[in-house]
């Protein structure tokens, strides 16, 4: 009996993550995908066909004939969507690179700090999360606007005489994304660097590498898993980011998150916004799956 119970518990432990994925990723995704195949209509919910169980299986099959790929065709016909995808990916890529550039030295410094200091440094990295994300983004408006804190400071110390226009430009979006997502870059890199054996660096130096070369030949390659994890954690949400471009970006900023929001709320076109979301998911998931395949292959070859 006890054996059976323990077997059940160990099963359950495996089931939990799968159940989580099923309920909070796969099922919602299928709902979104299903809506993307529907047509918009003035009703509640605002799309057709709508299934009800009263018609039985035959009724459901009959209604499934109402599905079409029209919305996806529509996305290819209006260049707006293509431009929004491209500009989102570009903005996310640049932001990810900037975050990496700033985050890596921070993570490196933390990993090299005295052991007693590290918990405090970790706290400092996580600390901003204790304030609402929205409030922090609004605070950037106060800093970046023409009469904001940054311009006041720069004018006071005499670096500029005209206020810089940063707010409502792409620069403001970069600042916002880098600021908001920095911890997601720092933490995985820190964890990769922190567990690295320092004697590896000494071995590299012993074999003739000056410190900078030792970094590029040993430290950086060994921190790559952290760099990749951090980059994905920044890139993926940044592509679909809505709040930051909406609050800090200008009217000319085109990002897919904003497009999606417009379709959904302004146009009340649930099917098209669902199609936008589905394509966005494919854009994000396919390259990651591809890279992971390559990585597994490379690792298997080593055996």
């Amino acid at each position, binding site marked *: 009996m006890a054996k059976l119970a323990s077997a059940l518990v160990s099963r359950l432990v495996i089931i939990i993550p799968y159940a989580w994925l099923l309920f909070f990723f796969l099922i919602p995704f299928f709902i979104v995908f299903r809506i993307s195949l529907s047509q918009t209509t003035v009703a509640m919910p605002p799309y057709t066909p709508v299934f009800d169980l009263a018609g039985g299986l035959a009724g459901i099959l009959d209604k499934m004939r109402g599905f079409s790929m029209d919305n996806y065709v529509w996305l290819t016909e209006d260049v707006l969507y293509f431009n929004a995808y491209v500009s989102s990916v570009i903005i996310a890529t640049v932001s990810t690179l900037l975050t990496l550039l700033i985050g890596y030295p921070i993570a490196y410094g933390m990993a090299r700090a005295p052991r007693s200091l590290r918990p405090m440094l970790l706290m400092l990295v996580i600390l901003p999360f204790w304030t609402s994300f929205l409030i922090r983004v609004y605070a950037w408006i106060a800093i970046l606007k023409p009469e904001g804190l940054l311009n006041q400071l720069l004018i006071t110390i005499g670096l500029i005489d005209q206020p810089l226009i940063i707010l409502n430009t792409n620069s403001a979006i970069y600042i916002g994304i880098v600021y908001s997502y920095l911890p997601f870059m720092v933490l995985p890199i820190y964890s990769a660097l922190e567990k690295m*054996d320092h*004697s*590896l660096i*000494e*071995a*590299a*130096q*012993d*074999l*003739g*590498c*000056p410190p900078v*070369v030792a970094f590029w*030949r*040993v430290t950086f*390659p*060994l921190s790559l898993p952290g760099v990749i994890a951090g980059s994905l954690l920044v890139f993926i949400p940044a592509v679909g980011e809505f709040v930051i471009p909406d609050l800090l970006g200008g009217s000319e900023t085109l990002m897919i998150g904003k497009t999606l929001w417009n379709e959904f709320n302004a146009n009340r076109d649930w099917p098209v916004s669902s199609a936008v979301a589905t394509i966005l998911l494919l854009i994000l998931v396919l390259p990651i799956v591809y890279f992971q395949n390559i990585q597994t292959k490379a690792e298997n070859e*080593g*055996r």
Partner: protein
Amino acid sequence: MMKSLGSIRRSFAPWADPASKPFISFRNVTKKFGEFIAVDDLSLDVYTREFFALLGASGCGKSTLLRMLAGFEQPTSGEIILDGQNLAGIPPYRRPVNMMFQSYALFPHMTVENNIAFGLKQDGMPKADIAERVAQMLKLVKLEKFARRKPHQLSGGQRQRVALARSLAKRPKVLLLDEPLGALDKKLREETQFELMDLQQQLGLTFVVVTHDQEEAMTMADRIAVMSHGKVIQVATPAEIYEAPNSRFVADFIGDVNLFDGTVASNENGSVRLETTGGIPIRLASPERFANGAKAAAAIRPEKIRISRQPPAHAPINAAEGEIWDIGYLGDMTVFHVRLKDGKVVKASSLNAVRAVEDPLGYDQQVWISFGEDAGVVLKD
């Protein structure tokens, strides 16, 4: 005939030749970490082609000494000379020494051959030469079949050999080994000891090895420096360290020893008379003279103590009566713990040269322990 300590006759003994110049010299080297003195005003010479061991308990400063030679630590004061060159201010990547790390420090993201080629690539050696050298190194450590494996796909012994090959690939003037065999099991360790010795002979390199394992040091080294609290207590060949320790510390640290404390009663041509606290009169040959009445101790190794049922002819000198307290049978030999009249327990070991003994010594038997005049040394307190 001249008596020699130990059973080894060495033809290689540059330290005994005043004309030979040391290859590595530590001159009054001190290293402090904050208030802690890791190495204390230490001077030491190592000669070309020597297999030199730094032996001591953990925290005695032996690893710090090695790390200063490699360049990872700078001496607080004093200087280190290697092949006539003062090493002060020379960073680790420009020193003609290579180190084999205790943790091996193999690069986990590189294959075995890339690990070995690491230093050669850094030196800008042509590709063909690198391939040749790597193949040569793999052959030397018998790992030809494992060239494309990653370190995590190797056993502990194989990793140790990769680390060795990598540190030898650049043909350093000196190879530093930090507890090279510490992570191996006993059997593999013993095999590898002899492999290392052969390798050192074959390549004609100078090896400096740090170890806390006295057997390892005794087996491999030409000379051993016994260290304690940042100081060298004795530098000598393994046989000298064992048979003629210069202090209680060394006698006690290396192997088993029976120490009889007492006072010097007299010096007579080449030998010293001790009156021990246990009441045994001891006479031992000693090149050194001691002041009468000075405190001293006789150090006698267990294998040099005989056990007999009858008192020896020279009793009561160098002999005492006791009772067998414990018997440890080790296969190749048997260790007896004999309890003397005053309660002191003396260890005596005897070789089991034959398989069966008639009427062997048993527990609680009354016996005599005895030893010859050249069985031990007299040590100053």
